[in-house]
């Protein structure tokens, strides 16, 4: 099961950076089967709505920025993901991001015994100091492997 340090809830982790690259945008757009020309051009292209998931390439793992909770990946489910877009994100941008665990709580699950809910939030700021996006997610750790 997960290990939880409640004293770290709500505390922002250390900032890290990620660079937004056209090649990565194109690769990501292909992976989600989206041929939109908005993702192809060096000058006008823009990051797709779920592109910030590529943050995974810039952190070791979730635990690196979300120190309050260590999760058991074999029992981990992704419950919800929420993106708030404040400004466009484009190739050439350097984003600074920081994350925190906002909340942790337990519920009885219908399919997998007790479930632990972990709500995380990441804030992204560009090289001009403008907040460009927030990404929030709900991870669920189940007591047993999930059925269905």
């Amino acid at each position, binding site marked *: 099961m997960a290990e939880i340090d409640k004293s770290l809830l709500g505390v922002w982790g250390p900032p890290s950076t990620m660079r937004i690259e056209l090649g990565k945008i194109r690769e*990501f757009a*292909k992976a989600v089967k*989206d041929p939109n020309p908005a993702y192809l051009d060096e000058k006008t292209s823009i990051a797709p*709505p779920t592109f910030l*998931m590529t943050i995974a390439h810039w952190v070791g793992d979730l635990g690196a920025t979300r120190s309050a909770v260590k999760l058991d*990946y*074999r029992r981990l*489910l992704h419950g919800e993901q929420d993106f708030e877009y404040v400004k466009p994100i484009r190739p050439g941008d350097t984003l600074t991001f920081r994350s925190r665990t906002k909340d942790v709580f337990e519920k009885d699950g219908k399919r997998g015994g007790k479930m632990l809910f972990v709500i995380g939030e990441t804030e992204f700021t560009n090289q001009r100091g403008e907040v460009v996006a927030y990404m929030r997610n709900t991870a669920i750790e189940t007591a047993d492997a999930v059925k269905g």
Partner: protein
Amino acid sequence: MATTFEDVKEGDSIPAFVVENLSRTDLVKYAGASGDFNPIHHDEGFARSAGNPTVFGHGMLTAGFVARCITDFVGVENVRRYKVRFATRVWPGDTITCQGRVTKRYEADGEGRIDGEVAALNQKGEVAVSGTFTAALPRRG
């Protein structure tokens, strides 16, 4: 071209996008693109040892397919919010239909905005991903 604010009514449906016969290669491509290398999505032995019949799709891959429905309708730059919830999982061989509709049309912060609901359904009609979005639409020029 993105839809304009004047062209949209509450209740309008958003054109569907269908992914047929999801493949393990699709899962591997998304793992590489996103950086989500949770082995449960590509390593058959690992997936089975965790009690699953085989590997299954990243929830965010399906959410990415659904996002295409939204951006084809409103334009990439106009999306203000996108929130998804994961229900049943998707498996290799599944056909996934992404669809949605406009639930609200309103003015806010000087922008003409819409809210909508979206979903990805498998070939049995089960919801894999459901979600909501907010977009600011351009006005007819």
